[in-house]
């Protein structure tokens, strides 16, 4: 944020608009969770709203929109890359287990108890 009083006052107007948008986004997130759209679509909708709200916070409250430093931009770019790698771990794990039936923990407990009784 630059130092002139005019600029700062303009920023304050923007902050109030962003605050309003975040409040609306929170209400929409809660309302959307009550709409019966299925789990997968529900997750997509909730994450889109969260991403929108998060982007507003980062862009305006954290002033990333006007950040010109290459050091910060590179740091964040690398962070995003490694974050995606982290998120790919569950995907690779899922792929590794494709076709393997899921079982509840202790799903065979009754059978093993029966065997022990014999």
């Amino acid at each position, binding site marked *: *944020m630059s*130092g002139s*009083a005019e600029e*700062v*006052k303009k*920023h*304050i107007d923007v*902050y*109030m608009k962003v*605050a309003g948008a*975040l*409040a609306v986004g*929170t209400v929409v*997130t*809660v309302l959307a*969770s009550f709409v019966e759209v299925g*789990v997968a679509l*529900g*997750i997509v909708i*909730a*994450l889109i*709203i*969260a991403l929108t*709200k*998060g982007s507003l*916070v*980062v862009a305006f*409250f*954290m002033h990333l929109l006007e950040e010109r*430093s*290459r*050091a*910060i931009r590179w*740091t*964040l770019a*690398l*962070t995003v890359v*490694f*974050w995606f790698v*982290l*998120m790919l*771990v*569950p995907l690779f*794990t*899922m792929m590794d*287990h494709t076709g393997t039936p*899921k*079982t*509840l923990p202790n799903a065979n407990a009754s059978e093993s108890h029966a065997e022990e009784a014999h």
Partner: protein
Amino acid sequence: MEIPYTVTARPDTGLNNVKLGIWLFLASEVMLFGGLFSSYVLLRVGAVEWPAGADFVNIPIGTFNTAVLIGSSVTMVLAYASLKLGDLAKFKTYMASTVLLAVLFLLVKSYEYYEKISHDHLPSHGTFLAIYWTMTALHGLHIIGGVAVNGYLWGPGSSMFHTKRDQFIGRVEAAGLYWHFVDLVWIFLFPVLYLL
């Protein structure tokens, strides 16, 4: 000994050390919480059944706490803007509001934890509860850290405004970046743990 480049930019990075330091710290925080979000996805897709968040958590209370935290982010950025305008009194008002809203968030969260403990919804009683407690407690620790730093900047730390104003503004900016990050984490935690 004077710590170099707290206000002026380093020639090699083009930034002062405070700003570069806080962004590097936040990058490490993204990976910390990213690891937990990744674990959440792994546990959820691997589970035979997953409880709806509403079975264990109170959505109206969570929504209220979201509004409280967003409100504290707004007062934090207004505190910073007040300093840029040279108005220490307004800064103190907004910073006090930020700290009070953070304390309110912690009180509400403590009530939620109390409810869970009294219903025997402990981390050891299910995968959802384990990841819920881990993520919200880690986030809560970050809130406590923010309260300590913001409380210091509001109280004894604010005397620097009269002696080293630019350095003080830099400190508040860094604390603000941290605080908005804590808000950002909650913006994702809320739908993930309460609504999905």
